[in-house]
């Protein structure tokens, strides 16, 4: 897969996608998002890959949307370009995405980070939705996902003032899972991806789906959804193997079936 805005490596069972527009702090233009979605959809279909690490560089995960691309846009341009359709596809990624976030994660960069399933941040990471400073507001899920992550009051303050949150604050308020020194966050994210990739792939996939379902459904419906996924797993070979290995006190060998 040739990409111009991403560096993509596979180290089965994991893949690493690195946003690669360092000169513009990995600003998210249309092409970058298109490539990202393409890469993730490809990995979803690739049996050798069971989890992805999504990262930028130490200075910037992503400083947000490419303002140049937006400056001249009219509402009709935005409708026709339909950039958010890419975000909708991003949301449907089936395999786990571990975000390894350092430096700026602002605007669209923060929203992209929040599309990850687990976030490992460096101590230098900064999260924010500063759109308000340029006369707009978050448009790729920021108002919804940040609110769900850190609660109404903190989200409202960040979104209305454009103030940033440090990695340690983000950790305290539940926006990130873990904070490590800048020299170590990426390896930790890879380690976690490897760990997840050792688990039964179908179970991983259905569990992720069920957790994300909780954002869209009332509890009763979510519980029914969970239960159906749970029952479904009893038809997999991996479930038999997992339980057998447990009773035999040995590591399970999962096949993804």
């Amino acid at each position, binding site marked *: 897969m040739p990409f111009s805005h991403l560096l993509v490596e596979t180290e089965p069972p994991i893949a690493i996608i690195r946003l690669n527009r360092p000169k513009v702090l990995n600003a998210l233009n249309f092409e970058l998002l298109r490539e990202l979605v393409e890469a993730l959809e490809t990995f979803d279909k690739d049996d050798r890959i069971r989890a992805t690490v999504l990262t930028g560089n130490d200075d910037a995960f992503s400083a947000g949307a490419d303002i140049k691309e937006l400056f001249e846009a009219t509402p009709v341009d935005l409708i026709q370009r339909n950039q958010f359709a890419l975000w909708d596809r991003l949301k449907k990624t089936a395999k786990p995405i571990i975000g390894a976030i350092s430096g700026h994660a602002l605007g669209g960069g923060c929203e992209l980070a929040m599309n990850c399933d687990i976030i490992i941040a460096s101590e230098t990471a900064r999260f924010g939705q500063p759109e308000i400073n340029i006369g707009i507001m978050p448009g790729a899920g920021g108002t919804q996902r940040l609110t769900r992550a850190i609660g109404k009051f903190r989200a409202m303050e960040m979104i209305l003032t454009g103030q940033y949150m440090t990695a340690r604050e983000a950790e305290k308020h539940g926006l990130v899972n873990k904070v490590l*020194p800048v*020299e170590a966050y990426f390896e930790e994210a890879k380690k976690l991806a490897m760990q997840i990739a050792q688990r039964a792939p179908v179970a991983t996939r259905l569990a992720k789906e069920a957790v994300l379902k909780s954002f869209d459904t009332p509890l009763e419906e979510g519980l029914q959804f969970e239960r159906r996924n749970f029952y479904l797993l009893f038809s997999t070979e991996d479930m038999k193997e997992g339980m057998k290995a447990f009773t035999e006190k040995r590591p399970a060998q999962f096949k993804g079936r």
Partner: protein
Amino acid sequence: MGYETILVEKRNKIERITLNRPSALNAVNDKMGEEFYAALKEAEKDQGSRCLIITGAGRAFSAGEDVAGLKERYGEGTHPSLGDHLRKKYHPIILRIRNMEKPVVARINGIAAGSGASIALACDIRIASEEAGLKQAFIGVGLVPDSGSSYFLTRTLGPGRALELIMTGRTLGAKEAETLGLVNMAVPATELDKAVDDVAERLANGPTKALGLSKRIVNRAPHLELSEALEYEAQNQDIAGRTEDHLEAVKAFLEKRQPKFSGH
């Protein structure tokens, strides 16, 4: 770079910033605040400088905030926002000194008062002339400690002794400060340069990355539970363990010679 209110010298991997308004006891006017901060930023970036010394020219280390500059701000009995002044001028300086991942030595040549004391207290190691002193001058003008003084004093001395110094505003002599652990060493004025240079040379030839990481974990230690501190040490030891200097030290040990640290 040409500065008006400070001097910056570099020699043998050691950088020295001298607050240089001796006729005003190196009081920090706004210009000095800007220049000092700019020099700190440069020093942090400069891979060639592996130890930073901060000192004052003439008799004083620094008398703190420049009182002459206050005249303009207090016209017509108004109350300027001191908080905003601190946030803009001093907080970046104090945070830069604390977060800079290389050793910073305060060469306390004379009185360090008010925010001048805060700057000295923000450094990693303090070496003072016996004629020097630290003074929490704030209460004398009806103000509270700022620029980190309350933080550093309380952590070093505990609340009782910190409050005594803050409430009385008395000048703490260098010898007493040494006894309290507030300065690392108090030496006769004539021996100050030798004492500072010995320490600075040792640090400048040390494993800079490990020195920086040590500062990082010590900065964070007071905020952590033991189990968290253990984990944070382990994370940073992983990083130190991958440096060239660590391998050089192991090699030197096996070869029974002194290590030569490159700082990487």
